[in-house]
């Protein structure tokens, strides 16, 4: 190195510092030192300027400067020994720096000795230089490996972040889905309650529809007793007039007067009786249309069946004036009263009768010779209840349809004629409302019988 000088060594030293700083990344790893290392160009420039100005090579100063820079390298290596490339750089530099330092010192204190051993020292420095080169290569490899490793770590980190982001996305999607499901559940719940309300309305409209069917029958049923009331009232006025006439006669016929009085009394009783009949029908009609009060009362099924049989018959007649049927009633005389919702049971019976009349009407329309449409009702006490049988000799129900007749909205009538709710509601009223049973026995072409049982 004795032949070197500041003009060459100065830039080399600055370059080495620059390379070292980059290689070891001192700005982040060793910021305290880096501040100073970054300033290294300043003394170099000063020395460089001196060298230019004096024209001297100032060898000693230049060597010392380079050595100082190298020692700084060793120091940095030691400081950063935990970082493998830095440690290798440091270790690599040590022999060379030591030897160069010894050479420099010997050059000052024992130039003779230096001269005598110059070859050995040069050789040692050469070896140390190579050593240093090897260590630099090792450091470089280490660094490369480390960079690669860091790359992998980074990659893994990035992957992790990606997964986390994905997880976040998924969580968000789950939240959205959950919200959507909750909304759907709410919507379904709203729809359900709407449907329940509609069902209630349907039941009411079915009730009103059956009432509408009955209107004509009811009108007829009321008109009959009203006619009697009017007629008996009219004829009673005549009787009273005749009685007055009789009493005005000089010779009164006591027997005739007694007869007239008897007839008058009888007529008034008839008026009361027929008036009661009419109001009973109106009461029944009101009860039928009223929403069920849920109040159970002792119910006479004979009376109920008789009333609704007539209503159903006249209801159908009102629509088909030429229709005629034989009504067979067989009411058990000592039928126990049943705790029941009478207007609900009335609807059941009405429905069964209406269906029976419909079936016989259908068969009659087939034009069978000698066919007499017949609808029958039969009651009998059961052990712990009552049985009502409603029969007809109508068209009958095919087996595949029998299985479905109690389903809501199932109807075989042309659209617009039946709601399909009649028997379904009847079944509900009997089974759910009264703990009874409602069964059907039918032979196509021969007739149908509904068997209704109700417990006490």
């Amino acid at each position, binding site marked *: 190195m004795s032949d070197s000088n500041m003009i060459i060594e100065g830039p080399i030293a600055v370059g080495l510092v620059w390379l070292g700083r980059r290689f070891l990344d001192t700005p982040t790893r060793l910021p305290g030192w880096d501040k100073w290392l970054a300033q290294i160009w300043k003394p170099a420039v000063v020395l460089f300027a001196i060298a230019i100005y004096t024209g001297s090579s100032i060898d000693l100063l230049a060597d010392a400067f380079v050595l100082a820079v190298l020692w700084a390298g060793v120091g940095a290596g030691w400081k950063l020994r935990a970082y493998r490339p830095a440690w290798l750089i440091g270790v690599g530099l040590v022999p060379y720096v030591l030897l160069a330092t010894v050479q420099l010192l010997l050059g000052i204190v024992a130039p003779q000795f230096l001269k005598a051993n110059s070859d050995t020292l040069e050789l040692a420095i050469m070896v140390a230089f190579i050593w240093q080169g090897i260590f630099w290569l090792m450091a470089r490899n280490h660094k490369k490996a480390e960079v690669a490793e860091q790359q992998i770590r980074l990659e893994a980190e990035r992957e992790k972040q990606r997964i986390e982001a994905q997880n976040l996305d998924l969580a968000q999607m789950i939240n959205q889905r959950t919200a959507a499901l909750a909304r759907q559940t709410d919507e379904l719940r709203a729809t359900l309650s709407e449907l329940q309300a509609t069902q209630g309305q349907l039941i009411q409209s079915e009730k009103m529809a059956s009432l509408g069917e009955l209107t004509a029958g009811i009108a007829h049923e009321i*008109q*009959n007793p009203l*006619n009697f009331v009017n007629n*008996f009232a009219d*004829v009673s006025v005549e*009787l009273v007039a005749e009685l007055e006439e009789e009493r005005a006669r000089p010779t009164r016929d006591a027997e005739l007067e007694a007869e007239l009085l008897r007839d008058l009394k009888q007529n008034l009783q008839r008026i009361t009786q027929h008036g009661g009949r009419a109001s009973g029908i109106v009461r029944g009609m009101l009860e039928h249309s009223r929403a069920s009060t849920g109040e159970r009362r002792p119910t006479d099924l004979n009376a109920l069946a008789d009333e609704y049989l007539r209503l159903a018959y006249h209801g159908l007649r009102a629509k088909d*004036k030429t229709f005629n049927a034989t009504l067979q009633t067989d009411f058990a005389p000592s039928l126990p009263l049943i705790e029941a919702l009478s207007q609900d049971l009335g609807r059941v019976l009405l429905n069964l009768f209406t269906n029976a009349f419909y079936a016989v009407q259908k068969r009659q329309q087939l034009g069978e010779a000698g066919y007499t449409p017949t609808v029958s009702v039969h009651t009998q006490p059961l052990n712990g209840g009552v049985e009502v049988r409603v029969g007809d000799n109508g068209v009958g129900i095919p087996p595949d349809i029998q299985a479905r007749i109690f389903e809501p909205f199932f109807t075989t009538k042309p659209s617009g004629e039946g709601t399909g709710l009649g028997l379904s509601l009847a079944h509900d009223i009997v089974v759910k409302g009264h703990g009874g049973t409602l069964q059907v026995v039918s032979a196509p072409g021969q007739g149908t019988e509904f068997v209704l049982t109700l417990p006490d």
Partner: protein
Amino acid sequence: MKILVVDDEPDVRTLFEQRFRREIRSGEFSFSFAYSGEEALTFLTGHHSEVVLILSDINMPGMSGLELLRHVKHDLIPPPPPLVMMITAYGDTDSYNQAMELGANDFLTKPVDFTALKDKLHAISTA
């Protein structure tokens, strides 16, 4: 004049007996009553020559008034058949046409106007 009244309402008898009590007392009319078409036919087979006029309701359980009318006008022997007046609560044209086709002599709607009916019956009995 013998008149057969056919109606399923039993009180019709009381009503007619009172409405026509003067005519019954004077012997101008005599009434018989049947409560169904079948009963009316049975009665007629026993008294066919006596009954001059039948007053029949159309709407009755079992045999209807129209069927009774057909039997009376077509099946009953020997002629001449009695006069038949149909009475119905449903004064619709279908029933009217059917009754007229089957040979009904008159068609009345309920509530029956007894004054008008009385006039008609008087006209028939004095004819």
